[in-house]
């Protein structure tokens, strides 16, 4: 599904990785492993086309295009419209994905991520949320935009045990629907029973 071939990248005089090659198939999770600073987040940014590699190619279903349907969750940011409520945030990204509003799906996702309280979803601006709630909303966005490739950088940051189980279930159902996930995380105990493929940097 996603093919990374001979990828090289570095900042100034410091090369991060050279001639990196791997593939991620449908229904597979690619766990990118490495110490701090080796370029795990950079690799995700390259796949998201936020950075340009020194050499090599990244293709999705053998097509190399400027943009392909990926959903990117950064480690540092959740990409929320902070003054808006949950509903407006999720609809904004879904509409930008080119999909019409889907109230039933929205409700089920909000329920899964424990964000379905009506007062919470309709009135409270996101900037008033706790760190964990913001992260859950970001993961709800990842589910609601229905994109085939998920790039998740430290998705469990701020999540409690229950939310980690939700993430496990969300990833499992995404894989069942034919998607794939590229994952950067230092906590792996919540990934039990999922088809992992490791890429060491």
């Amino acid at each position, binding site marked *: 599904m996603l093919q990374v071939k001979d990828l090289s990248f570095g900042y100034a005089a410091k090369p991060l990785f050279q001639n990196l090659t791997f593939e991620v198939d449908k229904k597979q999770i690619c766990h990118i492993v490495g110490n701090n600073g080796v370029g795990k987040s950079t690799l995700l940014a390259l796949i998201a*086309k936020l950075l340009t590699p020194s050499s090599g190619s990244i293709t999705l279903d053998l097509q190399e295009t400027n943009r392909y349907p990926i959903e990117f969750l*950064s480690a540092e940011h959740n*990409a929320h*419209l902070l003054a*808006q409520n949950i509903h407006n945030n999720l609809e904004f990204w879904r509409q*930008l994905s080119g999909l019409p509003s889907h109230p039933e799906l929205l409700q089920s996702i909000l329920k899964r991520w424990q964000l379905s309280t009506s007062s919470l979803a309709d009135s409270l601006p996101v900037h008033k949320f706790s760190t964990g709630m913001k992260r859950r909303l970001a993961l709800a966005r990842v589910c609601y935009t229905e994109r085939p490739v998920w790039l998740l950088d430290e998705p469990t940051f701020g999540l409690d045990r229950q939310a980690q189980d939700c993430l496990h279930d969300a990833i499992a159902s995404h894989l069942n629907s034919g998607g794939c996930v590229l994952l950067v995380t230092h906590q792996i105990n919540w990934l039990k029973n999922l088809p992992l493929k490791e890429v060491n940097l």
Partner: protein
Amino acid sequence: MNAVSQFKTLFTFGLKNEWRHKERMFTPVLFSLAVILLFKFTSASFSEDIEAKIMIGQILVTCFLALQIILQRTFELDDTDGVFTLIQTYRISPSAWFCAKFANIVLLGLLVIVVLLVCMNVLNPGQSELIWMFFVPIALAVLALSPLGILLSALTAQANGRQILFPILYFPLSTPVLISSSSVCLQYATDNAVGSPSAWLGLLVGMSIIFFTLCLLLFAELVD
């Protein structure tokens, strides 16, 4: 998803976002009102001819600075929490993104102009007809300056010292627009100004089209 749908989404949510940040929306309006009141209560009495010229200067300076406040903050909301970055990973047409920002800015700019002219009308009841004649040249100036401001705002959004960088780039490029706009207003207010209003208006329309087209093309390059 076609560019028109993307434009609608970005425009609608842009307006919703501005409405949620009411202090952002009303700061330029309140700034304009404060400056105009300050001008009114600190200027001396002159002949009718000179007062008309001073009034043009007051309106244009106020509008120009209020517009600069709006433009400088164009991508401020997108830049928070990585929204700008995530939009870049979506297959968004840069033209749709640019046009949505343009429509948002023009709406806010027109709001400032209307409030400003109403205020001027109240403060100068004898000049009512003349004041409303200024609407077209000032609105055209907003149309011409908005694309420029959006481009420069995107260019300086993640730059160090953007508070200084933006005006340094913006002022020289906006000067021809301001000269044209003030010349049209001057022509309306007095009989002895240089050129005809239609020629200056034509220049303003021309600059609006040129700035819009160039900035649209450069914006696509910039966000890519």
